[in-house]
């Protein structure tokens, strides 16, 4: 008999994870689809499920001195309604899935699902978010870009769980986000683009671009960003074609049932170009 768990404390949960492999389950809005079964039957989980929803300690969202901390069971809707959630994340969540799903889906779940098209991921990459992992062995802080290692692959040991996500405060002067879905709501992205920059009158002190659904993970180019930092806005704009070219070389979109690679690449670059022109 499979023994599913509904712990009420983090300690209970971590002890269980230390003992044996479990499937961590928060809102379940992705897992219930992936593990679907014939109507009326239990879902097809290959490991015992550890439901995190009862762990009250993980259900929080809190503004701290240098970051916003989002607990692992905080729903996206709760995050949307929190006054200090950055506007970018409000926009992303507002366009994501549907109200019924947002009421249950979590940021932690979106991260752990590690889909290249995961909606919140472009925002987390852009903001250099950090994932807090706990186990009986202790705590690890892992940058999002290191935590997600590939399509549906994450750096999570069997005895660890995500307890919170830290989104650093940023003072961008420009922010842009476009979700290109097959329809306006309730859709998986074909492409997602997020851009941010900090400029003074003439120069750029910080500039970032994150692309979703055009690579095995969300894609940022630290090298290109480093090169652009400190440049004059006018020079960046003058150099638009070669910047786009640099990114175009990095994108590796695929053909699937939702779109094709030519479209994904071209539109991603169009959106990047528009962002740069808007500086």
């Amino acid at each position, binding site marked *: *008999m499979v023994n*599913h768990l*509904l712990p009420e404390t983090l300690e209970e949960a971590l002890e269980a994870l230390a003992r044996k492999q479990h499937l961590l*389950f928060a*809102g*379940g*809005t992705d897992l*219930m*689809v992936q593990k*679907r079964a014939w*109507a*009326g*039957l*239990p*879902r097809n*989980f290959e490991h015992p*499920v550890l*439901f995190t*929803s*009862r762990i009250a300690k993980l259900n929080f969202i809190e503004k701290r001195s240098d970051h916003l901390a989002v607990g692992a069971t905080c729903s996206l*809707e709760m995050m949307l309604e929190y006054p200090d959630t950055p506007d970018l994340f409000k926009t992303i969540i*507002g366009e994501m*899935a*549907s*109200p*019924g*799903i947002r*009421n*249950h889906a979590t940021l932690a779940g979106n991260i752990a699902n590690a889909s290249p098209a995961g909606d919140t991921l472009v925002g987390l990459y852009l903001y250099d978010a950090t994932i807090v992992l706990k186990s009986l062995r202790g705590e690890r802080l892992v940058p999002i870009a290191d935590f997600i290692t590939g399509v549906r692959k994450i750096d999570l040991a069997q005895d660890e769980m995500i307890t919170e996500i830290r989104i650093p405060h940023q003072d961008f002067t420009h922010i842009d986000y476009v979700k290109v879905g097959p329809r*306006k*709501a*309730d859709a998986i992205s074909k492409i997602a683009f997020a851009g941010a920059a900090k400029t003074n009158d003439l120069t750029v002190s910080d500039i970032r671009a994150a692309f979703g659904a055009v690579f095995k993970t969300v894609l940022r180019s630290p090298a290109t960003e480093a090169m652009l930092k400190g440049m004059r806005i006018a020079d960046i704009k003058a150099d638009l074609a070669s910047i786009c070219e640099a990114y175009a070389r990095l994108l590796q979109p695929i053909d699937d049932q939702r779109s094709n690679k030519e479209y994904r690449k071209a539109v991603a670059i169009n959106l990047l170009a528009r962002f740069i022109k808007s500086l």
Partner: protein
Amino acid sequence: MAKIEFTLNGEVRQVDIDPTIRLLDYLREDLDLTGTKEGCGEGECGACSVLFDAEVANSCLVPMGNVAGHDIVTIEYFSRTERYRILEKAFLEQGAVQCGFCTPGMIIAAESLLRKKPKPSDAEIKIGLSGNLCRCTGYNMIIAAIRQAAKEGEGLW
């Protein structure tokens, strides 16, 4: 199996159940509450919408394990309320019902929306309904019905 305690349609229940069973199946199979429909089984169509702590949820994506400690209301119970009567009248008068398969879910989504936004704009209504697919009406009559309900039910939400 797990012991799960929750409130359903105003009554506290304790069940001993596999926590990976969907709330949808529990409602339909165990309790014969068939007003909650299965249209897709993957949270896309909204026919299975229920109120979960007064907010819309896809019962096909909610395992019983996540129901513990929460308050679930289905269309069968919601249909006894005054707010339902306002919505029903508006749906009837605006011609918002055709095949009816999506309709209970639409009503639940409308209730959830109006609780948060008693005077929604058309754009807010569309977002509020965006998780509920309808193939018959083209939505405009449903949107009009919610507009009408918000007006006629002013003060109820």
